[in-house]
C-alpha cells in the first residue's frame, strides 16, 4: 500500500485569549494509505479541524513533520501539493466563489492555469460525478445546502486530486443534504478509489470509513475499524460523542438484560439480531 499522508509526532498550539498557549494538537501520529477512507472524529475543540489545516498547509506544525505524497510540506512545494488535494469546508455558502455553478467548479482550474479547451470537459465531467450536471448555470442562492456542497466536491474533483478532505462538510446540512453528500462521496470512493479523510462529529458518517481516528483534547485517543471504535461506547460518550442510534439501542438492550450478541452498527443488523434472537434460545 502506498502512503498518501503521514503525521509524525505533530504538535501545534494556538495563542489563547489570556496570552498563554493552548495545545490544539499534541504529539499526533498516523499514516493514511492510498485508497483508504479515514474518519477523524472528536468533539468541538478536540483539535480535529486544526489537523485539517495542518494537512493542507494553512498551518505549519511547531514540532514534528507533515508529509503529503511522501514529501514534507513546506512553503516551496505548498501550491503544488495543494493542487493534488481537494478540501471541502463546513459552510456551503462561504466557499462558493463563482457566480454560477460552472464558474465555481472552474475556479481551481483557472487558478492553476489549465487551458480553456481542457477546462470545459473537466467541469462537465466533475459535475456529472456529483450528479449536478443539470445545474451548470444555477446561481448559488438557488441551490440547497447539499447541492452547494456537491458543487464544492465537484470543484475539488476538477483538479483530479489524489486526496479529498471533508472538513465537517456535512455538519451544516439537513438530513437529506447530508445523505446526498455522503452518498456521492461513497460512490466516488468505490468507482475511483479516491483517498478520503472526513473530519466529522457525526458517528453515522464514521460507519462508512475503513479506519477511524478519535481525537480528544488535541491527542489521538483511539484508532481502529468502526466496529472496534464503537466497542468503546463508554469512552466515546465520556468525551461527548453520540453513538449511532443502533449501537446505542443495542447497548441499552444488553444493559437491560436482553441477551443479544455482539455490536450492531446499523439498524438492519440490529433488527436481524432481534427478530432471530428468539430462535437462538
Amino acid at each position, binding site marked *: 500500500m502506498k502512503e498518501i499522508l503521514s503525521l509524525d509526532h505533530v504538535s501545534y498550539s494556538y495563542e489563547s485569549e489570556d496570552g498563554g498557549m493552548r495545545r490544539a494538537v499534541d504529539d499526533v501520529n498516523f499514516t493514511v494509505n492510498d485508497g483508504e477512507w479515514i474518519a477523524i472524529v472528536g468533539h468541538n475543540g478536540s483539535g480535529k479541524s486544526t489537523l485539517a489545516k495542518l494537512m*493542507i498547509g*494553512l498551518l505549519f506544525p511547531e514540532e514534528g513533520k507533515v508529509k503529503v505524497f511522501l514529501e514534507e510540506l513546506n512553503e516551496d512545494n505548498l*501550491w503544488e501539493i*495543494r*493542487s493534488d*488535494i481537494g*478540501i471541502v*469546508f463546513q*459552510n456551503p*455558502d*462561504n*466557499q*462558493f*466563489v*463563482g*457566480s*454560477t455553478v*460552472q*464558474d465555481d467548479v*472552474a*475556479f*481551481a*482550474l*483557472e*487558478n*492553476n*492555469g*489549465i*487551458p*480553456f479547451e481542457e*477546462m470545459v470537459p473537466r*467541469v462537465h465531467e466533475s459535475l456529472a460525478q456529483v450528479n449536478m450536471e443539470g445545474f451548470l448555470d444555477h*446561481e*448559488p*442562492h438557488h441551490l440547497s445546502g447539499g447541492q452547494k456542497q456537491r458543487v464544492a466536491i465537484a*470543484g*475539488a474533483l476538477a*483538479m483530479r486530486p489524489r486526496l479529498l478532505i471533508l472538513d465537517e462538510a456535512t455538519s451544516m446540512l439537513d438530513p437529506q443534504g447530508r445523505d446526498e453528500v455522503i452518498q456521492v462521496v461513497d460512490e466516488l470512493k468505490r468507482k475511483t478509489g479516491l483517498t478520503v479523510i472526513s473530519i466529522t462529529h457525526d458517528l453515522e458518517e464514521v460507519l462508512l470509513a475503513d479506519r477511524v481516528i478519535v481525537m480528544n483534547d488535541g491527542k489521538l485517543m483511539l484508532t481502529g475499524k468502526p466496529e472496534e471504535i464503537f466497542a468503546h461506547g463508554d469512552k466515546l460518550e465520556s468525551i461527548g460523542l453520540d453513538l449511532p442510534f443502533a449501537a446505542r439501542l443495542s447497548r441499552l438492550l444488553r444493559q437491560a438484560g436482553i441477551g443479544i450478541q455482539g455490536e450492531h452498527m446499523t439498524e438492519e443488523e440490529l433488527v436481524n439480531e432481534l427478530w432471530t434472537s428468539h430462535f437462538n434460545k
Partner: protein
Amino acid sequence: MLEKMIFGRYVPGNSFVHRLDPRSKLLFVFLFIIAVFLADNTATYALLLVFTLLVIFIARIRLYFLFNGLKPILFLIIFTLLMHFIFTKEGALLIDWKFLKIYEEGVRQGIYISIRFLVLVLMTTILTLTTSPISITDGMETLLNPLKRIKLPVHELALMMSISLRFIPTLMDETDKILKAQLARGSDLTSGTVKERIRAVVPLLVPLFVSAFKRAEDLAIAMEVRGYRGGEGRTRYRQLDWQLRDTLVIILFLLLVAALIWLRGGN
C-alpha cells in the same frame, strides 16, 4: 416596491442586444453617453430619442415594463421639466396666467434636458437589463486590461466586483434572518422618531458585519486552498467572443455620431 425597480437589474433573454459581446455594449454605452452631448437642436434630440426607442425595440423589452420600472426616475425627469418651465425666462411669452409665466425657451430647454436625461437612463438600463452582472464584470476587466501597465489592479477589482455580486443575495437572506430574530426579541424598527429608528438599526448592522467578516475569512481560506494566488498565470473559464455583430454595433455608433454632427445647429 423593490421588485418593480428595474434600474440595474438583469432580465435574461435572447435578442440581438442580449447576444452582443459585453465589451461592445459597454464601449457603446460609454461612448453614447459622451455623444449625447453633441445634440443641440430639435433634429438631433429627436434622432437620439428615436434611436433609443429603436434599441429598446431590438432588445425586445416591453415599453410598459421599462417605464413602469423607471417610475421613480421618470418623476425626477418631470420635475426637471417643470423647473425649466417655471424658472427659465427667455424667448417669447407662451402662457401668462396669474403668477405663472411660461416662456418659449423654458419649454425648449426643459424638453431638451429631459430627453437627454431620459436617453441616458434608458441606454444604461438597457445595458444592465440585457447583460448579466458577471458579463459586465468580464467585459470591464478585458476593456480595462491595458491599464494594468499603469499598475491598476484590474483583475483584483473585477474579482472583488464579482464576489460582491455573488454575495448580495446571501447577505440579503442573512439580513432578513437577523431582522426576524431581532423582531422576535421585541425590537421595533417601524415606529418612533427618526433618531429612534436609526438606533434600532444598530442591532441589525452589528451582527451582519460580524457575520460578513466571518464569511470573508472563510472565503479567503477556501480560495487559498483552491490555489488562488492573484491574477498571475491564471486562465479564464469565461471566454468573450467578439463577432461581426459587435463590429456592426461600433459602426452603427460611428454613423450615429456622423448624423448628429451633420444635423446639429452648431455654435
